[in-house]
C-alpha cells in the first residue's frame, strides 16, 4: 500500500481550507526544493513535505487573490505577472519576494526602496 494513500483520512476530514479534493502538490518536488534551500537541511521528517504542501497552497491562494485585486483595479480580466509584482510590493509579508518580481526595479523604484527602508 502506498504510504501516501494512508493519509487520505486526515486530508479529507477537517481540511484547513474547507475544500476537499486531490492533494495538489507533489511531495518529492517539495522535498527537493527544501533540500536545495540550505546545506544545513539534511534530514526531513515524513510529515514536513505534507505540511509544506498545505502551506504552499495557502500561500499561492493568498498571493493569487491579492494579485487578482490588482487585475480588477486595472479593469482587466486576465491576471498578469505585473499584478503579482504589485501584490508583492503592497504586502509586507511578501517582502522576501521583492527581488524576485522586480529584478530590474524599473517603474516602481520609489515604492520598492521605501519598502526596503521600512523593513530595515
Amino acid at each position, binding site marked *: 500500500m*502506498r*504510504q501516501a494513500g494512508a493519509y487520505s483520512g486526515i486530508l*479529507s476530514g477537517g481540511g484547513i481550507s474547507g475544500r476537499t479534493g486531490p492533494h495538489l502538490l507533489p*511531495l518529492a518536488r517539495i522535498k527537493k526544493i527544501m533540500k536545495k534551500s540550505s546545506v544545513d537541511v539534511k534530514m526531513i*521528517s515524513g510529515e514536513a513535505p505534507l505540511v509544506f504542501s498545505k502551506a504552499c497552497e495557502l500561500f499561492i*491562494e493568498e498571493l493569487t487573490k491579492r494579485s487578482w485585486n490588482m487585475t480588477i483595479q486595472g479593469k482587466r480580466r486576465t491576471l498578469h505577472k505585473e499584478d503579482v509584482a504589485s501584490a508583492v510590493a503592497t504586502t509586507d509579508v511578501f517582502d522576501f519576494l521583492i527581488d524576485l518580481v522586480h529584478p530590474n526595479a524599473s517603474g516602481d523604484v520609489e515604492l520598492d526602496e521605501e519598502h526596503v527602508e521600512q523593513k530595515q
Partner: protein
Amino acid sequence: MVDEHDKLLPIANVGRIMKQILPPTAKISKEAKVRMQECASEFISFVTGEASDKCHKQNRKTLNGDDICWALASLGFDNYSNAIANYSNKLRDFEREKASASSSVACAAPASQIHEEHVDEAAAGSSNSLIRFHLK
C-alpha cells in the same frame, strides 16, 4: 546537470490552485503562472531556511512539521501557522494510531518518530508522488 524544473513546483498544479481561488471567468497569463511557480519555490526556501536554522541551534538533525509551523509564525505568516498547526497535529495523531495498531503485529517505531523513509516510499517514482485522497 541540474534540471531547472526540479527547483519549481509543476506549473499545472500551481495553475490549478490559482484557478480554484479565482472567479470562473478569470484568466491567468502563462507568465503569471511561471511567476507564481517561482514565488512558491522562494517561499519554500525562505521558510525552510528559517526552520533549518532553528533545528541547527537546537542541535537537531531532522526538520519536522513543528519547525515549519514555528518558522511560518516567525516570518509573519501567522494565519498559515495556525492552520498548519491543526493539520500537523492530525498527522501525528494518525501516525500514533497507526503505530499502536501495528505494534501487536511487529516491532513498530515509536509514534513520535516519523521517518524520512515514509516520504521516500511515497515519492518513489516521480509520476506517483502526487497524493490523491478520496472522501470516505
